[in-house]
């Protein structure tokens, strides 16, 4: 079974600063997908960014970018110019290419302070 580890249960950042959330995973597969989801207090799960393992280039979506290190099985999320609306739980997730299950980490609670 695949495992996803988020070692930071909670983090804080000042508004307008940059923060990085860590995620590591364990798999024997070579092709897979990785995701970051955001869960604000509304409880809705929102896709932030995704990365295909076969792509060398790190994914970027506006203020959100990832640092994907395939050999190290690491997939961190960088949030630039943090905003109050970024306050949420963030989940890292893995999906194998040949299977259709999604595996999630335990989450990191991010608090953006004014």
């Amino acid at each position, binding site marked *: 079974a695949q495992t996803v580890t988020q070692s930071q249960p909670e983090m804080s950042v000042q508004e307008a600063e940059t923060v990085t959330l860590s995620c590591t995973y364990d798999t024997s597969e070579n092709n897979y997908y990785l995701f970051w989801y955001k869960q604000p207090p509304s*409880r809705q799960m929102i896709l932030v960014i995704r990365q295909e393992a076969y792509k060398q280039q790190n994914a970027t979506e506006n203020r959100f970018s990832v640092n994907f290190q395939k050999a190290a099985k690491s997939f961190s999320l960088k949030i630039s110019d943090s905003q109050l609306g970024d306050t949420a739980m963030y989940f890292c997730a893995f999906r194998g290419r040949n299977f259709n299950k*999604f595996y999630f980490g335990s989450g990191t609670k991010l608090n953006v302070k004014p």
Partner: protein
Amino acid sequence: DAGITQSPRHKVTETGTPVTLRCHQTENHRYMYWYRQDPGHGLRLIHYSYGVKDTDKGEVSDGYSVSRSKTEDFLLTLESATSSQTSVYFCAISDSRETEAFFGQGTRLTVV
């Protein structure tokens, strides 16, 4: 937004009673999932479906059963609810042509 509706949104039930949660999608996606979310555990897969009448167990399937008689509906049943099943339950869908999962709004279930 993906068309996924979970019902009910909130439920309180007594220990030992059966409970059924419903997930309805309008996206015609092949794959449907039930997850539970608990503090410190993230989202854990209970059961998933890869087609009508095709289902498989996830990592925390004990005490739960599922059924999918139509593409659009995926039911989760707690056969005899226990306090350890107090949780927030999420339904998710995915299509083989896309890679991410789309989530419903979640159901908060309290077993007293």
